[in-house]
């Protein structure tokens, strides 16, 4: 099938973002010995999977996919993950926080969230498997610290990010030089916004976890956030569960990821909802970003996604 395109030699913003991301995927595949794609099952990592699929088609994606299993993941997300991995025929590596705690790789002191324990698990897996580049779905519009991060984000032997030592990034010339034991985090969606991701998912008609769409769920209010009841959460005395129609704006650890009341059941309705949303996706629904003004910067320095 041949399609006639763009007689005025202009690309739409989504086409231009797509072309840039595909360029990044190919560059990494060509220059790094052992890349891996960090896949959470969330919309951003699904968007990355789609771009990787396009970058190498009709060949398969030439690197494996890594998921850090917090042990508190949504079943709907894991099911979507499995369908994507099956369809694309890529190798899936699941690194479990549970196992990392058992092995003494990370310490569960009862106070640190599973989200935070992911960092140690992730770094251990990267080191163990010898990955030299790890694709992440981070976007610069998400958060102030991310706005200054490079597409190629260099990590030292400890997996740390040093914002003051970042390499300048010019034109589309990405510098992939690393030394033994170091690795590169690569963010192909750096220039995408939340809305761009949704428009792209709508345009591409690709599967995302059903929890992004409005559904009935038993929820309770904790510190102003609506959390799902589950076997992983113990309700406090004043917390009363009730069934409401909700959807999730981000997916993560069930014990920390809040949902919003919504009737949006299609991509278009989600886009309309976001267009008038008054609170950022992380501010609304991520307990892990609320601790301090610099929460994300601190976690990033330690080697978080």
């Amino acid at each position: 099938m041949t399609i006639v395109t763009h007689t005025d030699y202009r690309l739409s913003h989504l086409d231009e973002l797509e072309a840039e991301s595909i360029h990044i995927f190919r560059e990494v595949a060509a220059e790094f010995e052992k890349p891996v794609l960090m896949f959470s099952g969330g919309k951003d990592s699904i968007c990355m999977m789609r771009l990787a699929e396009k970058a190498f088609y009709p060949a398969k994606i030439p690197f494996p996919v890594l998921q850090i299993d917090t042990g508190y993941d949504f079943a709907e997300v894991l099911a979507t993950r499995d369908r994507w991995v099956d369809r694309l025929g890529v190798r899936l590596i699941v690194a479990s926080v549970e196992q990392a705690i058992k092995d003494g790789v990370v310490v569960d002191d009862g106070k640190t969230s599973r989200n935070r324990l992911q960092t140690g698990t992730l770094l251990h897996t990267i080191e163990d498997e010898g990955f030299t580049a790890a694709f992440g779905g981070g976007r610069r519009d998400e958060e102030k610290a991310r706005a200054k991060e490079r597409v190629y984000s260099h990590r030292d032997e400890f997996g740390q990010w040093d914002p003051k030592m970042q390499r300048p990034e010019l034109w589309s010339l990405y510098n992939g030089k690393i030394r033994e034991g170091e690795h590169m985090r690569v963010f192909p969606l750096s220039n995408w916004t939340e809305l761009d991701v949704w428009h792209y998912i709508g345009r591409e008609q690709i599967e995302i976890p059903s929890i992004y769409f409005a559904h009935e769920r038993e929820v309770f209010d904790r510190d102003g956030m609506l959390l799902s009841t589950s076997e992983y959460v113990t309700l406090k005395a004043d917390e009363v569960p009730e069934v409401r129609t909700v959807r999730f704006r981000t997916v993560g650890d069930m014990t920390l990821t809040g949902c919003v009341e919504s009737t949006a059941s299609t991509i278009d309705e989600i886009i309309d909802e976001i267009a008038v949303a008054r609170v950022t996706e992380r501010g609304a629904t991520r307990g892990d970003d609320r601790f301090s003004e610099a929460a994300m910067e601190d976690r990033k320095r330690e080697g978080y996604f």
Partner: protein
Amino acid sequence: MATSDSSISGRPSMAGPDSSISGRPSMDLLRFATAGSVDDGKSTLIGRLLLDSKQIFEDQLEAVERTSKERGFDYTDLALLTDGLRSEREQGITIDVAYRYFATPRRKFIIADTPGHVQYTRNMVTGASTADLGLVLVDARQGMTEQSRRHAVILSLLRVPHLVLAVNKMDLVDYSEEVFEKIQADFTSFATKLTIPDLTVIPISALKGDNVVERSERMPWYDGSSLLHHLEHIHVASDRDLVDTRLPVQYVVRPKSDDFHDYRGYAGQIAGGVLKPGDEVLVLPSGFTSRIAAIDAFDKEVDEAFPPMSVTVRLEDDLDVSRGDMICRPQNAPTPSQDIDAMVCWMANEPKLRQRQKLAFKHTTRTGRVMVKDLQYRLDVNTLHRDLDATELGLNEMGRVQLRTTVPLLCDPYEKNRTTGSFVLIDEATGVTVGAGMIN
């Protein structure tokens, strides 16, 4: 070529791929770089653009309002919206390039927000390298300063095709036409020494919102458009070279699967010109010629490819083509060369750029090593003075150098093509990017 249904289990209620989403007309993309210091009100302007285009969310605004109050400010400091890193917040300055995003129904905008001080020339060069447009701010009370001249020089050296001079703080000069015209005349006369194909001067007040989103009623003497209107309507598609065909081969796609047994595609992002199936092509550096059999964009074939599309090209003949090669046209190809004359911006404290120094380079999809043969002069970006006695380039300095490369570069002059005319220099010991080069 075999095609497969690309969509899986799409929810039946989703919009079709061709429908404009949520009733929006199709948008394009404009990347612009801003330069100016805190005092010029740059952060306030960006904060205003984000706020007025509703990109600022309540939780972000509340955080900024809270901080402004804690610090005892009389009004909400929109500049706080763009201070990213803790060390920047502590020092109240911006030290790195920050990328910001906003969109109107017509366009998506990517702002490369760069600090203005002389020590941050490298950040401005970085921000300008990808920009379609440069936005320079001056304070109406001060007019042209050394800093604003430097910003214009850098934008000109980086061949940013459009420049907007925003004369800010017009509210503090009583919206005076005279003040504006004086600054406009000063800048225009200075700009004649530079390469600035398109210059627009707009009087604004970022703090009060005059001429930022809406035309201001307080400056009836100004008959141009508001800043946002200008950014939304400026034509950038033809800034790209659509004549000289250049496809740096990035990756060779070989599926080695039963369905695509003999498939061999050359993937890359078009750097110049328009490629069509049937076109006769020349592959450098081998010099072999062939014809384009098909251009694949995922599971579809396209009838033409142009910058900045990422595509996979198949050739009619079985040639040995690999990463780092360049697909171009027999009558229109770059001349491979190992002797490179370039303007270099140096970006590291140590080492400095010196004669006989060896470095790694990356140019399009090619890498190799270079030796610095000669530093011809150092350019003072404030005065345009050429220091012919210079023996080294330090951090944030620019100069004209002669380089010898281990492998030929398939390059064009930077003024013709910003992709095939640019390269970066890398310190081999640390792997750090230490220089940015533009080929003459």
